[in-house]
């Protein structure tokens, strides 16, 4: 069974990482006095996303549903989050590499092309969806029903076996 204190701790860590991510997405364009600043911000941002992925998977592994072997049920429920997080991670890394590559010599240069603008829009949109779905998943995993045997789980089990 999930301990309340542990869950609070994990949830606050996840929200901290999400807030950092949102902060960098919002203000990284302003913080480009030196290219190194942006580089460090981007690296930490990507690591934060990676951490969030690891944390959410650890939370999945901790559920009774997973331990009962119903990985499929869990995947079906949180498919959106998993796919979108992976997409966002890929988009982030590619945008960061592209932007840093263009701005490394002169951070105040006008670097925008149509391609970069498009990638930028998609990355930022994916970010918003990622925040929403990730937050929702993290909050939902606090539901005690995921950590105990229940009628619902037995029904699911029967469906899987069929």
């Amino acid at each position, binding site marked *: 069974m999930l301990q309340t204190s542990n869950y609070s701790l994990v949830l606050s860590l996840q929200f901290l990482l999400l807030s950092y991510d949102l902060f960098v997405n*919002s203000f990284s364009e302003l913080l480009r006095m030196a290219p190194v600043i942006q580089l460090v911000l981007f690296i930490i941002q990507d690591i934060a996303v990676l951490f969030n992925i690891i944390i959410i998977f650890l939370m999945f592994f901790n559920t009774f549903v997973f331990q009962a072997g119903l990985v499929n049920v869990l995947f079906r429920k949180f498919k959106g989050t998993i796919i979108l997080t992976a997409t966002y991670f890929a988009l982030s890394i590619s945008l960061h590499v592209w932007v840093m590559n263009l701005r490394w010599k002169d951070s105040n240069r006008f670097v*925008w092309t149509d391609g970069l603008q498009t990638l930028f829009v998609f990355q930022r949109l994916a970010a918003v969806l990622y925040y929403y779905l990730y937050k929702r998943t993290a*909050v939902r995993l606090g*539901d005690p029903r995921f950590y105990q045997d229940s009628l*619902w789980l037995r029904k699911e089990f029967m469906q899987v076996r069929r």
Partner: protein
Amino acid sequence: MRADSGLRLENHLRPPRALPPVPSAIQDDTPLSHPKKKKPRTKTTLGSASLEGFVQTATRRPSEGSEPPNKEPVEHPEAPVQRRQKKTKLPLELETAFTQKTSSPSVLRNENGIDVEPAEEPVIQKPRRKTKKTQLAELQYANELGVEDEDIITDEQSNPEQQSVFTVPTGVSQPVGKVFVEKSRRFHATDRAELIKTTENIDVSMDMTPSWTTRDVALSVHRAFRMVGLFSHGFLAGCAVWNIVVIYVLAGDQLSNLSNLLQQYKTLAYPFQSLLYLLLALSTISAFDRIDFAKTSVAIRNFLALDPTALASFLYFTALILSLSQQMTSDRIHLYTPSSVNGSLWAAGIEEQVLQPWIVVNLVVALLVGLSWLFLSYRPDMDLSEELMFSSDVEEYPDKDKGIKASS
């Protein structure tokens, strides 16, 4: 734990005691916990000579009223064994500075629920009481301290009528006017009322913790975020309107003074773009939360039914896309230098060409954001996520699963 709760129940049912000291009142709700700094103790006025005698009386006492009846048969046969153990144990007891204290039986009985062999308890418990300072003991004292004033006597007293079968060997003790609290390896006399105050607070907080489940944590976080969202909806609408007003004022009549706009607005353009993204992101997430966007079927149905909240989230998302598409132009404004300067991004005459769509997009964003705010304020309490996610009925699940299947 089960035995403990049984005890608790038992305690509530019991009628109030006529005679003072003993342990039975003490045990109710004392969660087992970690060691604490101080451990109050009382010294009894008993001499060692009477120790032999009162061991027997006290050992019988606790089970008299507070022990669950079904336990008695189990404990009964072990009584002689315990008594014998106690007798062998006595010299050790006498060596200690403080002898029997009033709460000691309750310690034993609280832990009875957990300890497997009650017969061995006296042997194990006594040394532990001396060395370990537990919060448990402190909490017991919170109750212990609440004895009636007339109960406090200094004379030795034993109650022969309190005969019982459950034999936890303890001494007879009486509450005294002062409480002796161990601080830095010494016992200091403390006022009872003062100690009650401090320990009662701990008791309350300990009682609260079990009722606070992970679901409550999740729910409170969810509601906290809804408050953040509510703030950002309004703030965003205000900001966007302010922004578009500033742009039109700076641009002058019929956008005749665009170079002035560029010069004045260039420091503002990028920070505002960043702020806009932050607020739009928060507002969009909050609006999605309200319609439970992840359940696509529900969200689409609501949208088709022209539900204001669903419309608002759609408008926010559109505003977000439009705002993001102006990132390039915002950076261009941010890096504005007059066309006369070498390497300027702004060639003469392209200002209107670039700025016209930018102003229009900003206007549209302001309108969308303002409209969304109006739509949301039409039904500010609506929150489908909370309804669907945190509903505790198992019967909800078939509906939820249908929704998920439909969305996948």
